[in-house]
């Protein structure tokens, strides 16, 4: 049952990623990205990680996807990947490079401490445990995060208001 859910979600994730890479129109890519992000949220649910799943649905599939669609609407795309490609040979080179990368990560997977069952299970407390950690051990990084978001807001405003 769980394996079935995992397989379905994995097929969705990989398929939508392939769609994002292959489709020429960036708005199709954005919609594939939404599917991809939503199925990753489902993957988190099958891992019994509710907090990342909800955060994924809200932050990624909600805010970031909308931001992408807005940017595509502003930029009037569709004509930028036509015409001759000056770097065509280099682009074909990308496929074996990624193949080697995948091979290396496969080797790491076989050698890493992923064999057999994990340590004895005491059920991690879900959202409660995450919140407890976030506001005790990780309090300082948490505050730094707020500063980072503030800096991003200010930076985006200065960039967007500048006269071209």
């Amino acid at each position: 049952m769980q394996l079935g859910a995992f397989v379905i979600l994995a097929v969705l994730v990989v398929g939508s990623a392939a769609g994002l890479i292959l489709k020429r129109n960036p708005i199709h890519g954005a919609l594939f990205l939404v599917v991809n992000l939503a199925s990753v949220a489902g993957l988190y649910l099958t891992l019994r990680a509710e907090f990342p799943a909800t955060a994924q649905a809200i932050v990624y599939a909600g805010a970031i996807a909308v931001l992408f669609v807005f940017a595509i609407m502003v930029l009037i795309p569709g004509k930028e990947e036509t015409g001759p490609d000056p770097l065509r040979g280099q682009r074909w080179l990308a496929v074996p490079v990624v193949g080697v990368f995948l091979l290396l990560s496969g080797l790491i997977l076989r050698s890493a401490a992923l064999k057999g069952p994990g340590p004895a299970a005491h059920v991690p407390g879900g959202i409660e445990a995450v919140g407890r950690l976030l506001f005790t051990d990780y309090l300082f990084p948490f505050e730094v995060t707020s500063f980072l978001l503030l800096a991003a807001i200010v930076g985006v405003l200065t960039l967007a208001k500048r006269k071209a």
Partner: protein
Amino acid sequence: MVPESYYVALSAVLFSMGVLGVLVRRNPLVIFMSIEMMLNAANVALVAFGQRYNTAEGQVLVFFVMCVAAAEVAVGLAIIVVIFRLRRRLSVDELSLMRW
């Protein structure tokens, strides 16, 4: 219970597809989406490892990655919009100058 190694393998595949997207595509928006996909792949691996070792720290790290990704997308899209305003075209191959 699905073994965590399946999730880590899926994460590796997803990350590789993100790398492929970054290397193959010319549109900076699509490259950006591929980068988001790579961040997502790292998140999946983090959650899988966290669940395997029965700790919530993986999910805390995912939270931080999401914050950084949100900030990155906002700033990056603003930069892309400014570049488009300046040049009226969008292709990463033409953006070879740091300034002009």
